[in-house]
């Protein structure tokens, strides 16, 4: 257990209070979970996994890769890579997929998910823009990752990310609450409270080559995890038009397919594909299908 105190305190004055408050806690020999027993290296990659699930709320795609713990020498480069890819509006993925290609409505990158003490995840979370589907967005993200692995980030992307990471570290120190949280987090995850602070030797001197190397090493397409989450188009149509499309498609598919489960599956997948079209295109599709059903 660690206790972080920030503020107008002196160790001499606070020691009796600490002794009274926490000194009665029993000492136990550390067993399971000792940091020394944990490997900072990644276990063998489990291979690519893909999950498609129906859930309420806005459609969302998650792409994740396994990364080592915060104590691994590659972690600072991964932190700067995450910032360069999706840490701000001007970051590479935000710029390319939100501003230029307009595939994504929101996009963010996090690392150390759910925590950095053990090997964890490098996670990209994105919601598609109107008229774009989850698969299309997933492919666009993969394509940008491949591009970074082949062509490196620009010098400007690197400089911006380094500056933002340094500023983030600095701003955390301003407020006692956030400073205590950062120190406690660094201590719990890495065993070293100093890791709550930016150091030039650790983050400041990183190069584009190093960022490209960690992107190649960890963001491997064959070892990622992809989760596509969206509302079921049959159970929870996103608009009245989708409801109409579902009904007319069901009529058409049931004419050709006897198995109701198979028919439902075909209709569901078709509706998912149609979500990638614009409103006008979907309305035209409905007219075509209605004509087909009437003939």
């Amino acid at each position, binding site marked *: 257990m660690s206790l972080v105190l920030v503020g107008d305190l002196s160790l001499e004055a*606070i020691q009796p209070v600490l002794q009274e408050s926490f000194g009665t806690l029993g000492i136990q020999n550390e067993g399971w979970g000792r940091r020394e027993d944990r490997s900072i290296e990644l276990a063998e990659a489990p291979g690519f996994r893909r999950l498609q699930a129906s859930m309420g709320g806005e459609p969302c795609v998650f792409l994740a890769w396994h990364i080592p713990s915060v104590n691994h020498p590659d972690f600072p480069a991964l932190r700067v890579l995450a910032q360069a890819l999706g840490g701000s509006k001007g970051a590479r993925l935000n710029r390319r997929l939100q501003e230029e290609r307009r595939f994504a409505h929101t996009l963010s990158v996090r690392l150390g998910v759910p925590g950095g003490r053990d090997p964890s995840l490098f996670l990209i979370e994105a919601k598609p823009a109107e008229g774009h589907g989850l698969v299309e967005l997933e492919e666009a993200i993969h394509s940008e990752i491949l591009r970074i692995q082949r062509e490196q980030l620009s010098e400007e992307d690197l400089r911006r990310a380094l500056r933002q990471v340094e500023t983030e570290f600095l701003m955390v120190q*301003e407020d006692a609450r956030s400073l205590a949280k950062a120190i406690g987090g660094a201590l719990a995850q890495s065993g070293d409270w100093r890791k709550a602070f930016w150091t030039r030797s650790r983050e400041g001197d990183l190069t584009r080559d190093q960022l490209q190397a960690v992107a190649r090493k960890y963001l491997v397409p064959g070892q990622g995890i992809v989760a596509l989450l969206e509302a079921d188009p049959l159970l929870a149509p996103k608009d009245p038009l989708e409801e109409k499309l579902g009904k007319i498609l069901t009529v058409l598919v049931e004419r050709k397919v006897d198995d109701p489960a198979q028919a439902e599956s075909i209709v569901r997948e078709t509706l998912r594909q149609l979500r990638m079209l614009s409103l006008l295109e979907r309305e035209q599709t409905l007219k075509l299908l209605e004509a087909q059903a009437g003939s």
Partner: protein
Amino acid sequence: MRPLPLLLPAVLLGSLAAGEPQEFRTLNGLRVLLEPRHERPLVRLELRTAWEARELPGGKECAGELMGAILERCGAGGLNRFALERSLGDRGLKLTFKGRRGSLAWTMLADSQDQEEAFQFLAHAVFRPALAEGVSAIQREAKRDALSEAAFRAALGFPMEGVTSCELDLPELLALHGRLVRPERSVLVIQGDLNLAQARQLVSLHLGTWAPAPVAPAVGDNAPVSAPECLRVPGGAALVLAGSAAPEGNARTRAVHVLLGLILERTFQDFAGESVALEAPRLEGDAGPLLFRVLPSVSGNAERHLKERLQRLVAQGFGAPELARAKAQWRAERSALALHPEEQIFVRSRGALLGDPADFLGEIQLEEVNEALRIRLSPKNLRWFVRGVSF
């Protein structure tokens, strides 16, 4: 398992206590307060401007909140919202905006090496906003639904949550911006790694050109318009709310209401079998609205139940121990303020414009608090929202 007290070196933390600020005024009337702090290479700026309900078109209090919501959604300085956020992000600048009843505030946090850009972007946001973009955004996002719980809350002074009953067109909003956001009625608080000479130079360079727009004549009768006494909404899940709007008045009056809010919060927390929940937020350390909500466990006529509960509360009033406990709680919160510069700066800027209620903490008497309770919960000042209950 061994407790490990971790005390940071003094050089790292520096002094968290704040001294008295240095003050100057620019030629355009902007008041500037500077609190130099050189422990860390950071600069925080807060520019705040105050308004009163009688200055709003047709006395619509919601217009102030609508202006806040629009400023939150627009770009500035010739950049659209996306480009503005990108430019700020590229420079590691953090700009936040708060539109609250009675004031609008912009806060900027920057590495001190970027202080010039911090001032430049703050000036863009304050007096060069792209209001048309904000109006379009709010038209897309906000539902105009006067019969919603969110609109009822906004009318009491809670922050707007994407629903408004307010309708103003772009020319009206431009005129309103010119009338409300003016240097001579604003205060800029600068905190951080900056000295007086630097502050004077940067303020003069970036905010010295802020010329107040000619004051547009008031539109129509500007007597404040408050929420209707009772909004009855048929259908939907049963909900009975009673609210009392955030009070206006001088700092001493608001201090009484802060203490009243603290006592009420404790009163409704302490009862294990309580049938009513209370929200009594302090808005940036100042007095805020009160919102009572009948809990679903209440059977029978929920509206009558709440009325009786509030009448009982007024009849009983509060005692000296409750006031003493509220004062102790407020004092404790204030003493911890130095640990949180972000909260400290908005208390400082709000206090500079409207007076700091905490200055009167020691003087408030029990009779004043009980009188405030009677006023806030009088039928004249209570507003009701009744949904899904047969009338």
